[in-house]
């Protein structure tokens, strides 16, 4: 008996074999869904983004099997599907947790405390950006502006809003998620798993009782101007939605490696080999 090179973890630069197909029953079910998606558009290729959400709802990430399925259904090559799947950040390319916890670290949320929250969660969970806890429950990542700046700092869990967070509230939230306790967002429906969320994104409405109504018409910040216009609110003071003890954060000693978004920059190239600095990161004269 011999083991293949891929089983030994050695790449010989050989092309991968075609992805295995879905089991027949899964394929039949997904084909029904895929046809419903294709029917929404004048041109079948428009179904590709929702179909990638659909295959993500099956396996929790976009697998080669899923991409092959999309290619087969839409008459595309796997290269065309892969090109699209790798362009968009919401498609995961490896197995991840049931709950995706995304901390906004774009400028406004970062300044308002998003950086501190992200740091706290990394430490508390013992995982870095894009990594999943050993129990498979939580995948932590930092996210870009999620259009909720008036609720900063914002954390998204499976793309439901957790507004006005603090390091403490975020830590409690992930503890609850890992312990299986029910967790409800400040805006959005009671959490479902990442796979179930992906199915909604594929365009299949959430049929859970009360999911659409959950958390009411609008968040408090959305109503501030309206209340003022109706003479209902006195000029506001600073109001903290959840009280926590002040933070004793250490003084800021920024280094390039500490930047939360550092992984977002283009990957190192030979020209930016840290061992042989050649660009503006070179420290001549030091």
């Amino acid at each position, binding site marked *: 008996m011999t083991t293949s090179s891929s089983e030994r973890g050695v790449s010989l630069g050989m092309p991968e074999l075609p992805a295995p197909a879905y089991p027949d029953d899964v394929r039949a079910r997904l084909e029904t869904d895929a046809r419903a998606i294709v029917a929404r558009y004048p041109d079948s290729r428009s179904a590709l983004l929702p179909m990638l959400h659909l295959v993500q709802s099956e396996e929790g990430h976009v697998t080669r099997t899923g991409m092959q399925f999309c290619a087969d259904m839409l008459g595309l090559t796997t290269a065309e599907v892969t*090109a699209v799947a790798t362009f968009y950040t919401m498609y995961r390319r490896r197995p991840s947790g049931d709950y995706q916890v995304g901390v906004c670290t774009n400028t406004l949320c970062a300044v308002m405390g998003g950086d501190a929250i992200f740091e706290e969660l990394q430490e508390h969970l013992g995982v870095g950006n894009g990594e999943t806890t050993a129990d498979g429950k939580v995948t932590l990542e930092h996210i870009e502006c999620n259009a909720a700046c008036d609720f900063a700092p914002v954390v998204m869990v499976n793309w439901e809003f957790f507004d006005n967070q603090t390091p403490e509230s975020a830590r409690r939230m992930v503890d609850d998620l890992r312990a299986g306790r029910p967790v409800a967002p400040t805006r959005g429906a009671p959490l479902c798993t990442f796979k179930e969320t992906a199915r909604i994104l594929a365009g299949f409405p*959430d049929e859970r009782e009360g999911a659409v109504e959950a958390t009411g018409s609008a968040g408090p910040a959305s109503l501030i101007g*309206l209340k003022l216009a109706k003479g209902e609110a006195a000029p506001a003071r600073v109001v903290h939605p959840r009280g926590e003890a002040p933070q004793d954060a250490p003084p800021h000693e920024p280094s390039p490696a500490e930047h939360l978004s550092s992984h977002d920059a*283009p990957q190192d190239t030979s020209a930016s080999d840290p061992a042989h600095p050649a660009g503006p990161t070179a420290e001549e004269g030091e």
Partner: protein
Amino acid sequence: MTLAPELKDTSPEKLLAPVLSAFWDEDKSWTLDVYKRHDGYEGLRKALAMSPDDVIAYVKDSGLRGRGGAGFPTGMKWQFIPQGDGKPHYLVVNADESEPGTCKDIPLLFANPHSLIEGIVIACYAIRSSHAFIYLRGEVVPVLRRLHAAVREAYEAGLLGTNILGSGLDLELTVHAGAGAYICGEETALLDSLEGRRGQPRLRPPFPAVAGLYACPTVVNNVESIASVPAIMNRGKEWFRSMGSEKSPGFTLYSLSGHVASPGQYEAPLGITLRQLLDMSGGMRPGHRLKFWTPGGSSTPMFTDEHLDVPLDYEGVGAAGSMLGTKALQCFDETTCVVRAVTRWTEFYAHESCGKCTPCREGTYWLVQLLRDIEAGKGRMSDLDKLNDIADNINGKSFCALGDGAASPIFSSLKYFREEYEQHITDRRCPFDPAASTAWADRTEVHA
């Protein structure tokens, strides 16, 4: 710049004008029932009684301008659609709201999705389209749920589908969730994405009005622009023009965020000032002062406390050297390091650059390298001119507006805060404590 007389009053009741947000505080505001109680779909009835060309002319006469950033007259966009060309026409609503600081369309769609749907039906009647799309960014599932529910309600009530309200108008509406790419807010990248491709901008011309979705004539409008149309049809263009200024008429959503006492949505006539908004809402957080702010998201050149009285309309902000953009008023106080803020925005642009054109792809990368060094106290004085130079090589030389947006924070921060950059370089460290900027920095109460 002169202000309309009524704007001289300082009471919020006089200064604000909730239209789209008027009933967000009601129970189940997102439902058809509540929308109808607030004159919902009355604008559509009035539009259907007019000829399509008259609807286009009416919206044009109202002076409504695009609320997505560029401020292009909405009625004129509709007028560009060639009629009688035998091709399908499409309306695509840009609900990809991703510009840093921008947070108006998401609460609007969460609380009042029917205003958009009604606007879509009116617009499609005007441009003779029988299929419209809402391209919603994917990362907002609560909004997607309500859009799904609202579209279903509209179909069931005969407000979408065939022979709408007995007018003979047929319209399909598809809600399409994106998958996380800021560039898809650029209208031609959005169209490529909606066609199932990587979201990369297209060369223009041809403009979408001639060759848009599936190479057919297409109107791409922002959510708030389309959602404003029903009120204009129902209450009249004169009513709309009674607000704002001659060139920037009407009402709009201003989104106040950051170190202010009351972040949130403020719907007001165009031309209100940040000072008026802060005065009515409790100002900056206690004990702090405004340092810098953006009038319309991170892609619009930043302002300082010198600009508190700039009228927030297209002309006023333009004359002061920035752009009205999305009216995302991100306010930062004196605890905030401007180098840190600009570095983070620039990291965002580098991450979101689609890679199609060289100035943006390469330029944003090198801006990040320089800015990180400067923030870490490892920069050199010559880096500041280099920053300016690289930004100059991106601005106006990129394939789409993402590059121009990336250059804006660099130019404007160097213009107003060059000394702060220099301080990072001479002190060889960042002089700010990020803990002082957090929302809980000044919290004194202690909880168990």
